[in-house]
């Protein structure tokens, strides 16, 4: 493999990793607050893909992007209100089953509304612009994805550590009841979590599908699972963990494809999950969970 090809693959891997990281943050945040694996998150990401297709029919891309983000946020918050909030006091297993139900509901709804045939993802001319540095050429999206990911995550971490709502999120993630005693509205904080998670999924979706060029109702399943693995790998509940996990999975997957083992690239992700769970179940950055007696 020539040096140029190597760099080219590295860029692709980092870019894919960035998109994964954005989705993985959504999993890890919801888990941090609700101790729930939001299985519908991958499908929210898929729906964001369809929203973009429809938005771009009549809107210029600069308007379509915020519209898509807002629509995805509304979808995410609505799912929380309808499918998770009524189960707040139910056993954790019930709410998880509800999440799986929402996931299938979204997939089938998309199949019903948009058919299972792949729909072409619109091109955003700016993102598709090819850059040439020496022998290496890549579209702008490849460069933008990791930069944007890191910038968004730094912004998010700053928000969590330095703002009032961020402080409330940290408090709620530790202790619902005492947070309520402080006067924190739990539901507002939970909605905020879904707003952020869905907005990041929408951005991730735009970056991811711009490279893939088509959306099907099942486009969210595998990336969703992989990002979940990324979140577990990094230590679920930890935002930096989810980002590192996302990049690891994106880069490993691309490396395997580059080496000619593309058949195994998906399987590898899950092998990684099994190995991680066997040797360090709390993930790279995960906190040790001490059950209170």
């Amino acid at each position, binding site marked *: 493999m020539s040096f140029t090809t190597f760099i080219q693959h590295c860029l692709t891997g980092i870019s894919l990793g960035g998109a994964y990281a954005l989705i993985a943050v959504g999993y890890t945040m919801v888990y941090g607050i609700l101790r729930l694996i939001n299985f519908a998150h991958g499908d929210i990401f898929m729906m964001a893909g369809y929203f973009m297709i429809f938005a771009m029919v009549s809107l210029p891309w600069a308007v379509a992007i915020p519209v898509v983000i807002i629509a995805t946020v509304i979808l995410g918050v609505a799912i929380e209100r309808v499918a998770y909030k009524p189960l707040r006091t139910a056993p954790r297993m019930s709410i998880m089953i509800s999440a799986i139900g929402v996931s299938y509901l979204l997939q089938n709804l998309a199949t019903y509304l948009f058919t299972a045939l792949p729909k072409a993802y619109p091109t955003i001319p700016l993102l598709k612009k090819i850059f040439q540095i020496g022998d290496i050429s890549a579209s702008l999206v490849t460069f933008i994805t990791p930069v944007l990911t890191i910038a968004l995550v730094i912004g998010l971490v700053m928000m969590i550590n330095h703002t*009032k709502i961020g*402080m409330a999120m*940290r408090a709620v993630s*530790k202790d619902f*009841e*005492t947070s*309520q*005693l*402080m*006067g924190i509205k739990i539901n507002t904080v939970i909605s905020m979590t879904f707003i952020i998670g869905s907005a990041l999924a929408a951005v991730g979706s735009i970056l991811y599908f711009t490279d893939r060029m088509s959306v099907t109702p099942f486009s969210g399943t595998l990336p969703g699972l992989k990002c979940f693995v990324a979140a577990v790998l990094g230590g679920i509940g930890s935002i930096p963990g989810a980002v590192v996990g996302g990049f690891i999975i994106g880069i490993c997957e691309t490396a395997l494809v580059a080496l000619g083992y593309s058949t195994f690239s998906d399987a590898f992700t899950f092998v990684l999950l099994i190995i991680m769970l066997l040797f360090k179940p709390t993930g790279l950055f995960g906190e040790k969970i001490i059950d209170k007696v």
Partner: protein
Amino acid sequence: MLKIKDLRVSYGGIEAVKGISLTVPEGSIVTLIGANGAGKSTTLRSICGLEKPQSGEISYFGENIAGQPTDVIVSKGITLVPEGRRVFPDLTVYENLKIGAYLRKDAEIAKDVDWVYDLFPRLKERSWQMAGTLSGGEQQMLAVGRALMSRPKLMMMDEPSLGLAPLIVQGIFDIIKEIHKQGVTILLIEQNANLALRAADYGYVLETGNITMEGTGSELLNDERVKAAYLGKKKK
């Protein structure tokens, strides 16, 4: 200030509070004593909206607050120092105090942080430490300080002496009296009946969800039945 009438609360399928009535006059220290499972915590939890009462009235300055959401009740000036302290372990001491003032929008929050640091100089030394690294006594100070940050009119305390060394317990009670002097009404529940009744103006004895006795602190301290059951002194 606070009047409870015929309060009934079920907790985990059993009726923990079976129709109690009590009064907390403004400016007083009132205590509820009783054994484990007598319904003391459930009473406090329903006053601040963490449990929904089945029936009865909780009137606060004449307004029935029974069943209102916790954040609304807290905004009216009621606060609870929960059992077991429950400070936020991953937040610094300073952030724990700030979050106590979560509902406040006035400009005097910084001043009140200083006020709490004056009451508890130990907390000031540990301002930037994670609350989880504090000792039990320091965590209790922080829990009290955090509750004060909401500028409560009524502060309820659930077993502030639990699991603390006697010397530290004495310190906590001195602070409770100091806070009371500064104009905060206090509703205190305790298993350490002796200490609680000495501090209180008025006391209620709760047994399996019912109030069985009431009286001023000294009346109850000298009552033979209270002595036998809660103060560990034999009847003569």
